[in-house]
């Protein structure tokens, strides 16, 4: 069964901490994505990557960075966590043109206190 695995289901962090969210896929997909999901706002794209060491800003990149050193792993970094970054974070992957749709991880619910 193919999978996208997010390392944590729930995280609680303090304001100002540096936070790492990890995502690993086993489908050999070129594309990987980070979204945040908030009630009433749907899914908003933070960053995506279409190849190793390549990254592109999405719609809401401020306060975030990403790293993709290996094809299967895509990390989201909150440089200095703030309370307005409390959210559900979803990682996804897809083949290059996305015709098969996305495969999502189970999500990480991050609370910043």
């Amino acid at each position, binding site marked *: 069964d193919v999978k*996208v695995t*997010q390392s944590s*289901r729930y995280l609680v962090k303090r304001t100002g901490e540096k936070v790492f969210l990890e995502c690993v896929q086993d489908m050999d997909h070129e*594309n990987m994505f980070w979204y945040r999901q908030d009630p*009433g*706002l*749907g*899914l908003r*794209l933070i960053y*995506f990557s*279409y190849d190793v060491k390549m990254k592109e800003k999405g719609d809401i990149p401020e306060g975030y960075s990403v790293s993709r050193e290996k094809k299967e792993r895509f990390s989201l970094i909150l440089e200095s966590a703030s309370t307005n970054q409390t959210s559900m974070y*979803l990682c*996804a992957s897809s083949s*290059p*043109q*996305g*015709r*098969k*749709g*996305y*495969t*999502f*991880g*189970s*999500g990480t*619910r991050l609370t910043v206190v």
Partner: protein
Amino acid sequence: AQSVTQLDSQVPVFEEAPVELRCNYSSSVSVYLFWYVQYPNQGLQLLLKYLSGSTLVKGINGFEAEFNKSQTSFHLRKPSVHISDTAEYFCAVSPFSGGYQKVTFGTGTKLQVIP
């Protein structure tokens, strides 16, 4: 650029009744269309997709959707819902052309199945 509108944020329906979840989109180019389902505290799962060909597509769990190009709609239907269908449903579109194309998601419709 494209946009997706899911007008209904919540849809309550009795068990074994039919349901339709509406999705309208706008795009200046041809698109792929998708429906995803999200069960509580989980990620999104692909329910079905329209790429080309027959405008009626069938997905998992007895769901189907019909692509209507003239009305730019892709409504999701199920003839008889079950309690286990309680979830949030997202419509998404992606323009098709070479290379990566950004997927745009709707804001979701929460389906509540009432026993």
